[in-house]
């Protein structure tokens, strides 16, 4: 428990945490002090001089002196005034000064209406321009498809560089020039390279950086219909706020969750939303025998005939569909005929992860906990590309070392530049062992590249060093042994060590070795956490629901026991080899696909029904931590689009199968799920039921300033339509309802009187930078078994040995392109690399190929022709192929590939 201190603000006593800076303390108490350069996640530098307050020596001091609240610690007896006339005038003059060069842009500025500079200007009362001289101007830069640059609007607060360079580790962005010419941008035009560049949009308190995708269909914040949602582009489940207007999804903003994503999102999550608006969307039911969309009734009739009572029907679920969708399918076809729809390899890996997390003594760590770990060992996962925000958290964990130094030097931890100066290059330990060089190595203590089996051997060796009950690794080279010893020593000295691994290199042995390391630490009484990256937004939830991979489904079909297959939001071509999928389609008489976008699978179906994308429906996803998180419908989609579970319920009702008819809203299905599946017993606990009201009112999805209500439909009918009803949640599709703060899981947007920008968030937290008032939303589904007797994994793989003329091919991940849904969004597709094969230059020489040239390689008897890219740090005998990129889908890696030497140049 932190030490508390009593401070006096305008002569009234308040209790605050001793040592916090006064700005943090005052904002947490609910006071309004204007600020620019301070940010709760990046702390204070005292650059903007906006947060001035007056400090007094004691109660007899009437003169006082002006100090920067963000740079002044709260100590017992501190006396300050926020309201003092002189300090108010000071703050007003600071804004006036910042405004001397500010362009007359608000009407055409995308920040307008949610601009921190506007808010602060109004807050200080500066309203009239007295400055009669010329304004400084700048040229803008092209910064890629995500972020727009309008440099004239800069107020030189330095937040952007501090985020981009210090927090996110980017290098291609900085401050240029001097005095009042300081410029923030790149050394030359070009796309921003950092994976978190989109956060500049929210970090910058002005309109210098704005969302370029949003600009294409721009809407003010007050006109966006929003609801709490969850990112669907990786397994971490960052919380988001999607915004809609006129039936189009307009943008994604961060939704703070202290335990998950905090203040930030990655670019895939922020800009991957455009697939919802894409041409590829399925908007009406389709049938193979008709080229036109078919009316709903006709499709229903047809479907009920296909699924009549007694027909042999299987269901293939999906890790990118909600729990509810999967559960409805499982209920329709029966537990024995439900397949999870992941590849055979993923099924094995996910099963292992669940076993480790649910049976072992190590806890699955949240993103926030990962950021606070004091020693990290990454085993086999390229987190920057497969679970981006985890990489951002790990980058913060290495910065914790300085905190120890600060304590020694008595530097408060929020004094950002002093902290950095004191720390210099000191870092907390981070060991990265992966098949290829990953970006996180920039901040690592030591890195190691090897084939998956060798990575597992390193893991096993570390575990053995920690606890000799964990199996020893035979024939470990001296160098590796020293490395293992070193890692073991550091991990055992840490208080909260974290082991990160995942499905990335497709190896069970790697997962097992990671588990052994964490368990060995737990058995040494360290509170070791485990964090596994999983491929998709509901991978873990689906794995908790059932077994059976796509291959098992194929087998059932080949055994001849199937008439009809229902495929839920899944493209089988990404899950298995093309030939296998084709032969599956040849065998099944009827294929029904429920999906939101046209995929290879949908185009093979006999019947396709339009499913809701994440923003168009409600559901629950389970992230890699095992946290069940609810996402809410943002808008009512057009025509026949409906949540998959609604379609399935109706199909079931129409076909005369008993069961799901009584499911009217999401709550019923969640209840049914928690009754019938043990893992989901507690899932309803954090769920707010649809009947929940605050003082009898709904929580409105539209801001109270939502405009155009009586004109937006007037071209169709002058009679305003009644707002649609929501059976699934306490939110309404209207601007009417409760105007105060809803419970944490139901916050549709951050807004408070006087705070129109994202910084209104301060008002929603119990303490600035802490959890949301009432606790961060989400329900963890499993906790570690303290006295776990689970025994160590004992199958240590043999050392990897390269083969002549062959390469072991492993997957390489790309933040843009490797994930299915975001890859359908134009701006992400634009940033994705083309297919290639990564080779060690020495290996390439052996095979007589060179960079840029095509090489022919046969994998599982199929030949691919791919351009070569040199990756000097690959272990020899190993090559990499990008995951999920077009042309390489469905390939199960790691696998051996034979290089065809005769490849002509």
């Amino acid at each position, binding site marked *: 428990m932190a030490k508390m201190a009593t401070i006096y603000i305008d002569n009234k006593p308040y209790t605050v945490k001793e040592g916090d800076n006064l700005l943090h303390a005052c904002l947490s108490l609910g006071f309004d002090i204007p600020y620019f350069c301070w940010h709760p996640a990046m702390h204070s530098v005292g650059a903007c001089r906006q947060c001035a307050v007056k400090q007094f020596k004691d109660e007899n001091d009437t003169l006082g002196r002006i100090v920067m609240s963000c740079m002044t610690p709260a100590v017992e007896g501190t006396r300050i005034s926020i309201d003092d006339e002189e300090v108010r005038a000071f703050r007003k003059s600071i804004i006036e000064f910042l405004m001397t060069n500010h362009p007359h842009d608000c009407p055409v500025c995308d920040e307008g209406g949610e601009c921190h500079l506007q808010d602060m200007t109004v807050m200080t009362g500066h309203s009239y321009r007295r400055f009669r001289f010329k304004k400084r101007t700048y040229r803008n830069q092209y910064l890629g498809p995500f972020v727009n640059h309008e440099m004239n609007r800069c107020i030189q607060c330095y937040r952007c560089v501090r985020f981009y360079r210090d927090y996110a580790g980017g290098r291609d962005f900085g401050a240029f020039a001097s005095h009042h*010419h300081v410029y923030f941008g790149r050394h030359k035009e070009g796309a921003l390279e950092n994976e978190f560049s989109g956060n500049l949009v929210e970090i910058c308190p002005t309109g210098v950086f704005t969302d370029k995708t949003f600009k294409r269909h721009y809407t003010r914040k007050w006109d966006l219909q929003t609801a709490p949602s969850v990112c669907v582009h990786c397994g971490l489940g960052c919380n988001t706020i999607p915004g809609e207007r006129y039936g189009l999804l307009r943008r994604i903003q961060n939704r703070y969750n202290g335990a998950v994503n905090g203040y930030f999102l990655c670019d895939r999550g922020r800009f991957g939303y455009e697939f919802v608006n894409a041409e590829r969307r399925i908007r009406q039911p389709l049938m193979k025998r008709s080229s036109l969309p078919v009316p709903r009734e006709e499709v229903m009739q047809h479907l009920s005939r296909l699924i009549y009572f007694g027909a042999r029907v299987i269901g293939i679920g999906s890790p990118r569909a909600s729990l509810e969708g999967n559960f409805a399918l499982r209920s329709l076809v029966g537990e024995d005929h439900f397949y999870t729809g992941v590849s055979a390899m993923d099924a094995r890996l996910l099963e292992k992860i669940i076993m480790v997390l649910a049976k072992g003594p190590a806890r699955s760590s949240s993103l926030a906990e990962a950021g606070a770990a004091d020693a990290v060992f990454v085993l086999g996962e390229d987190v920057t590309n497969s679970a981006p925000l985890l990489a951002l958290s790990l980058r913060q964990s290495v910065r914790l070392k300085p905190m120890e130094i600060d304590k020694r030097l008595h530097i408060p931890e929020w004094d950002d530049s002093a902290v950095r100066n004191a720390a210099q290059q000191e870092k907390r330990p981070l060991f990265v062992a992966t098949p290829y060089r990953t970006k996180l190595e920039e901040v690592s203590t030591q890195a190691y590249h090897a084939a998956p089996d060798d990575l597992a051997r390193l893991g096993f060796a570390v575990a053995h060093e920690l606890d000799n009950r964990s199996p020893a690794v035979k024939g470990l080279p001296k160098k590796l042994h020293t490395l293992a010893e070193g890692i073991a020593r550091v991990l055992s000295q840490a208080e909260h060590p974290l082991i990160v691994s995942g499905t990335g290199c497709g190896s069970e042995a790697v997962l097992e070795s990671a588990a052994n390391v964490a368990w060995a630490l737990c058995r040494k009484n360290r509170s070791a956490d485990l964090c596994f990256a999983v491929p998709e937004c509901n991978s873990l939830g689906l794995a908790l629901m059932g077994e059976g991979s796509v291959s098992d489904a194929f087998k059932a079909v080949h055994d001849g026991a199937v008439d009809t297959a229902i495929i839920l939001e899944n493209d089988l071509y990404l899950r298995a080899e093309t030939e296998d999928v084709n032969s599956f389609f040849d065998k099944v008489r009827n294929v029904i696909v429920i999906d939101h976008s046209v995929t290879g699978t949908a185009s093979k179906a006999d019947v396709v029904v339009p499913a809701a994308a994440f923003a168009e429906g409600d559901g629950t996803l389970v992230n890699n931590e095992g946290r069940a998180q609810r996402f809410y419908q943002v808008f009512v989609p057009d025509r026949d689009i409906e949540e998959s579970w609604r379609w399935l319920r109706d199909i079931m009702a129409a076909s005369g199968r008993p069961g799901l008819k009584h499911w009217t809203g999401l709550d019923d299905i969640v209840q049914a799920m928690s009754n019938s599946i043990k893992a989901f017993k507690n899932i309803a606990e954090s769920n707010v039921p649809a009947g929940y009201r605050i003082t009898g009112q709904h929580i409105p999805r539209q801001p109270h300033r939502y405009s155009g209500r009586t004109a937006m439909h007037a071209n169709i009918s002058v009679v305003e339509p009644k707002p649609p009803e929501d059976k699934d949640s306490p939110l309404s599709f209207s601007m009417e309802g409760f105007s105060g703060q809803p419970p944490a899981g139901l916050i549709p947007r951050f807004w408070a009187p006087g705070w129109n920008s994202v910084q209104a968030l301060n008002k929603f937290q119990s303490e600035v930078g802490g959890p949301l008032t009432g606790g961060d939303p989400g329900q963890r589904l499993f906790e570690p078994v303290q006295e776990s007797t689970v025994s160590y994994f004992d199958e240590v793989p043999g050392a990897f040995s390269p083969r002549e003329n062959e390469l072991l091919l492993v997957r390489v991940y790309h933040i843009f392109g490797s994930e299915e849904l975001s890859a359908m969004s134009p701006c992400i597709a634009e940033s994705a690399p083309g297919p290639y094969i990564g080779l060690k230059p020495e290996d390439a020489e052996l095979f007589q190929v060179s960079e840029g040239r095509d090489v022919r390689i046969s994998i599982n008897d199929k030949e691919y022709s791919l351009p070569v890219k040199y990756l000097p740090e690959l272990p020899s005998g190993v090559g990499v192929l990008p995951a999920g990129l077009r042309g390489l889908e469905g390939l199960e890696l790691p696998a051996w590939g034979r290089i065809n030497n005769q490849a002509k140049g």
Partner: protein
Amino acid sequence: MFSLIRGAWTVLLHMFHRRVTVQYPDAKAYVPPRWRGRIILSRDPDGGERCVACYLCAVACPVDCIALQATEDENGRRYPEFFRINFSRCIFCGFCEEACPTYAIQLTTDYEMGEYKRSSLVYEKEDLLISGTGKYPGYNFYRVAGLAISGKDKGEAKDEEPPVDVKSLLP
């Protein structure tokens, strides 16, 4: 009896008063220039559309009868892709004009807008956009704003210095 005579007398007197009834529509009543009648969208002195689709009029409107969508042309100018006013809801309060930062939206002295069908009172941009500057001649938002559009580069707006050379460290 007396009251009857008094009534007749008053009527007789009124015959010599000035007439107030206007023979509308043959004769038109005087409306002051600040009259809040039919709304128009004006153009800047160079003939460009003044509205920059900032949504301020829409949010200011107490009956929410303005709906629009912003878009951008090849010159970098923002303009409304569509702009709709539902006059069957409009209360002619003038808040939109008050809110407009570009003088684009203006209320005029025209009040002759009666229709038989409510739907005819829904005006689209084609119905709203006039070819002149309306009540406010002279003002051109883009000449003041910092945003560069084709034909007006950075540093060329009113009271602007030429763009900074970021490579120079001279004071």
